[in-house]
């Protein structure tokens, strides 16, 4: 079965520090991968998506970047965090088994102080 892992589960970082959030998937190959952010009490905002290794599409210009170094690994990064980067970050995938449905990982709660 397909599984999505996100690391870390919770993170508290000072303003101006770097960020690296990791998403890995199991049980499938060549998935489409997505990063979403959810601010407190708000809906989901699509940040980046990837259809393959090294292929990244950005939805919202901001302080963040994404990379896909391996087929089943998707990384969200920042060189210098802002207070406004606080939120809940969700990774999602869809694969050939069920190409029209996105399944979500457990998420990472990021607090920037």
């Amino acid at each position, binding site marked *: 079965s397909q599984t999505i892992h996100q690391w870390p589960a919770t993170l508290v970082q000072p303003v101006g520090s770097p960020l690296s959030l990791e998403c890995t998937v199991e049980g499938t190959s060549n998935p*489409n991968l*997505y990063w979403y952010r*959810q601010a407190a009490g*708000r*809906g*989901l905002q*699509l940040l980046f*998506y*990837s*259809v393959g290794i090294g292929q990244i*599409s950005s*939805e919202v210009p901001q302080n963040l970047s994404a990379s896909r170094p391996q087929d089943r690994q998707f990384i969200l990064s920042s060189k210098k965090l802002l207070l406004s980067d606080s939120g*809940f970050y*969700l990774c*999602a995938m*869809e694969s050939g088994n069920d*190409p*029209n*449905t*996105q*399944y*979500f*990982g*457990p*998420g990472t*709660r990021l607090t920037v102080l």
Partner: protein
Amino acid sequence: AQTVTQSQPEMSVQEAETVTLSCTYDTSESDYYLFWYKQPPSRQMILVIRQEAYKQQNATENRFSVNFQKAAKSFSLKISDSQLGDAAMYFCAYRTPTTGTASKLTFGTGTRLQVTL
């Protein structure tokens, strides 16, 4: 652009009763998918039910069913025999079919469901 509207910010239901959450959407496409996701306090997004627009039959998953009205662009979720574990934020979402590249989900703003004893 496609939009998804959930007009009920909060709903409440008694345990064992039935509740219906509303969702409307706007699109010019004829083929698309609609979803309801549940977000409990853990905040993980969990797929509840899915409906393909080309299917006239309403989707059903155990106690969860939808009323899909394509002409009216309406997609409501009915929860029967409500349980305490159903308390969560519910999001309606829309997407066009994948055509070799990624296709984006458009989410509504959510409905918070409370379940009371």
